[in-house]
């Protein structure tokens, strides 16, 4: 399975949080949801860090191209 996009991951995370906050999941399921949520969080943060790195790199490149 290919990795979900940032937006898809964020949406799934939102659904999980909503589900957990509603409190109607059974305990085992809740633990699994939490684990999945943490996984999605890491994935999203990774994506954001990558985007941040790219922005910095582009900004540097623009900076150095300035006459």
């Amino acid at each position: 399975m290919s990795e979900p996009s940032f937006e898809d991951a964020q949406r799934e995370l939102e659904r999980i949080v909503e589900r957990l906050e509603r409190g109607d999941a059974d305990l085992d399921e809740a633990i699994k949801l939490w684990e999945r949520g943490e996984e999605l969080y890491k994935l999203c943060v990774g994506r954001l860090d990558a985007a941040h790195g790219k922005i910095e790199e582009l900004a540097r490149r623009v900076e150095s191209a300035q006459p």
Partner: protein
Amino acid sequence: MKVEALQYGDRKVYSVAAFNRGVADWLTRLPSVWVVGEITELRRHARWQSVFFTLKDPSDGACLGVTILRSRFDALRLDLADGDRVHVLGRPDLYEARGDFRLRALSIERWGLGDHLAALERLKRKLADEGLFAPERKRALPRLPRRVGLVTGNDAAAKRDVLTTIRSRFPAARVLVAETYVQGPLAAQAIVDALDELCSAPEVDVIVLARGGGSFEDLLPFSDERLVRAVASCSVPTVSAVGHEQDTPLCDLAADARASTPTAAGRLVVPDVTELQERLDRSRAGLERGARRALDRGRQRIEQLHEQLRRAPALMVERKRARLEHAAGRLRALSPRSTLERGYAIVRGEEGIVRTVSTVTAGDRLDVEVADGRFGARAE
């Protein structure tokens, strides 16, 4: 009329009078026509039978003598003066006594600004009815033309204004100039030809028609029907910069854009390179800002979600625990203790709770439980 010639050997020779009479006679076969021109050298004397003036072609100075009977001239009440533009209806005529060729006028009509304006107005209405000036026909000018075509006279000012403006705004611009007549009877066709030439030149993406201000007559070619149609049907967008603010020759209405001066035309056809650069820089800065903002928003949202996620399981366990406590409470409420508090007691024998007398024999040891404890007893 018979013109007599004298015979000298094999040569036929006419007297001056006979020659003049012959030519004059032949001229009478020509029809009456209208001739347009400007009045100069108007000579009228009370003792002369005729009034004389010279009709001059304002475009090239060609001259034609005109005579008209004084009574007829006076009856017209035109109050003419040198420089007036007139239409003269007359017949070619030779003044035999002097061999002077001239136009014998039968009638004169003043052909002034008003008539010009009326004729122009008619043409304007006709072309407007055809939709030549319709706003939906106007094309957008290219933002960055590969080449700019410029139709202009060798009249330095207009040309220089356009070129200077273009060069200062966009130094890399390429301009193809077609010099042509911009006034006089040949101008309209010459400008049409110049337009065609520029249209078919490669890479010309916009054409400027420029001419400095001038008299009403000077600008007339720019209202010529041929030129107006050529501008309207030009295959590349056109900018008309003819005359000054207050003049509106018809080609202004047919062009895709109108500039009040040649300088303004220059500004219309090429962008200002400094301004362009600044706008690009601003866009680029905006690009970076936008990317960073999107990133920040994403990060905030994710952190918020993470916070919620972190709290959710504990919250959920808490909630489950609360529900459990609640159930326990209810469970406790349902236990017999409350019954004991109302004064009942549970009696246990050797075989458990005593529900009937048949299980008890006198002397049995019994255990009695009441609300706050238990004590022993013996059956009697």
